């Protein structure tokens, strides 16, 4: 069974049909890439899945359960975490606080417990060392460079131990050395059993690590297959290059 199943999804903004009759299924344990020209509806799909937008029609199923009308925090708590195309960090808070804020509160009274429990701090430090920025733990996140913010966001969404990790352009604005390290981290996470869905324009990254690749255009799925199949697909080339 697919971990995430999108069926007949529609969403329009005013007169623009951003997503139209879109069907995507993300298999458990795989790295799936979502590619397509600008305006194809990839980020809209992300926003619909994570509950930031609600669909006009269609169904979104996670582990077989319908999540269409849940609120974003409920979806996160079910096991879906996401990063943003342009990183969103909590500027006036430290890197460590940015991490810990993502860990879950279980009951009502937990809310009034200490903001940073010992085990949470340890877990956060482990994840920061996973991406190599432990030395910045007590720095306010607004002082970080863009690349460091990318790493922070990547590490912080792992705090909630997601089953499905959705990365919106993890390579965007990142230099080649950092890119290598991000790719390694994504592969390593996947080996640990995290299912990953990536929106990405960097074809090197897409073709190197993902299978399958899904190509979207005009709000719907144009083609789906192995990296090789997508590279050879005439429709995909046309969508990117025009006719």
């Amino acid at each position: 069974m697919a971990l995430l199943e999108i069926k007949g999804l529609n969403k329009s903004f005013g007169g623009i049909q951003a997503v139209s009759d879109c069907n995507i299924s993300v298999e458990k344990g795989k790295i799936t890439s979502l590619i397509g020209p600008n305006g194809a509806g990839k980020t809209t799909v992300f926003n619909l899945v994570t509950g930031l937008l609600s669909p006009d029609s269609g169904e979104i199923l996670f582990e077989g359960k319908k999540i269409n009308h849940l609120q974003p925090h409920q979806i996160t708590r079910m096991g879906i975490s996401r990063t943003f195309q342009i990183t969103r960090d909590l500027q006036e808070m430290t890197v460590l606080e940015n991490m810990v804020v993502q860990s879950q509160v279980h009951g009502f009274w937990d809310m009034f417990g200490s903001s940073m429990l010992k085990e949470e701090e340890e877990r956060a430090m482990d994840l920061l060392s996973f991406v190599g920025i432990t030395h910045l733990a007590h720095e306010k996140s607004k002082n970080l460079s863009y690349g460091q913010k990318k790493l922070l966001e990547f590490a912080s969404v792992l705090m909630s131990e997601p089953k499905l990790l959705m990365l919106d352009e993890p390579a965007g604005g990142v230099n080649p050395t950092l890119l290598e390290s991000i790719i390694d981290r994504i592969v390593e996470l996947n080996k640990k059993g995290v299912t990953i869905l990536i929106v990405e324009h960097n074809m090197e990254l897409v073709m190197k690590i993902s299978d399958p690749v899904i190509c979207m255009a005009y709000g719907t799925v144009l083609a789906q297959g192995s990296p090789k199949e997508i590279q050879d697909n005439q429709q995909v080339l046309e969508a990117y290059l025009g006719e």
Partner: protein
Amino acid sequence: MAEELIQVDLKGKEGAIRVRSKVSLWLKRGIPLLILAILALLPVFQIVEGTLNYWIHMLMYVFLYVIMSSSWNIIGGFAGYVSLGHNVFFALGAYFAGMLFLATRISPFISAPVAGLLAMGFGLLFGLIALRTRGSTFIISTIALVLLMAELFDNWKLTGGTNGLALPLIDLPGQFAKIPYYYYLLVVMVLCVVASYFIKHSKFGLALRAISQDETKAEVAGIPTRKYKILAFGLSGLFIGVAGAVWGSYLTYLRPSIFLTVSLGTSIVLNTILGGKGTIAGPVVGTAIMIAVNEFVVAKLGATELNIVVTGLILIFVLLFFPEGIVGSLKARNKLPSFLDWD
């Protein structure tokens, strides 16, 4: 030999550092506790000497405003939702306890905690509606609440309309009459500031701060933002409601023109911003300075409107050089004296 010397030297240095950090810790906790002890003992001098009534009154005024600013800080400072209507909680507490007293003779000292819970309940209800909005729409909705309440209380027979309600004076000689109110407000103020500390350092507080930075990010991080904002708004009414009940009984008259003005709601916010919103000591420092300056100008220049001009100018100049408030900006520059660093 040389190595040994170096080690001894190091030990000496470490020792000195340890002593210094002990002293600074002592100052950090000692000075606020000393001030608190003086505040707690002041009425004893009043009982013996009988000359401190003016000071007692002024300090009660400070306590009251600290309670309001420190409470406001929970929603306005931590979560970043500026409410200009927090004096509504104050009015609710005062009117509830006053009316209850007139009907049943239950002392406001006893009913004050209930008044606080009532104010909190009202805050939850209002938050449920108003916190669907944010930014300027939210601010305007809180001003509308004040105006609406003033209109209601001005015209409602039960609350005495514009004439308000008159409550009897406390049955104590004038020399001692202020003292029970003084202690009540002092205790509520300490509880309120301590509560705001614990809220700031809880998961709830961290989540509120996340909301103030980027609400969408907070929501996606798994925080039920709407629920938390409503709870913060309600909690911020609790201590103000208690203070209202006590203050109403102290004043002995309740009128919409005292409790339900936009300028009162605004001054709660301005005091907090002056001291540093989002910090624990900020509301205390800001309130103390504002009231002291205002009182000084009134004493020197008489009850002209000049005090308003002076406090306005001070606010402008302070915020020009301390954009995050006095405590906030000093802390950001690492120049905050340790005894004011309560975070």
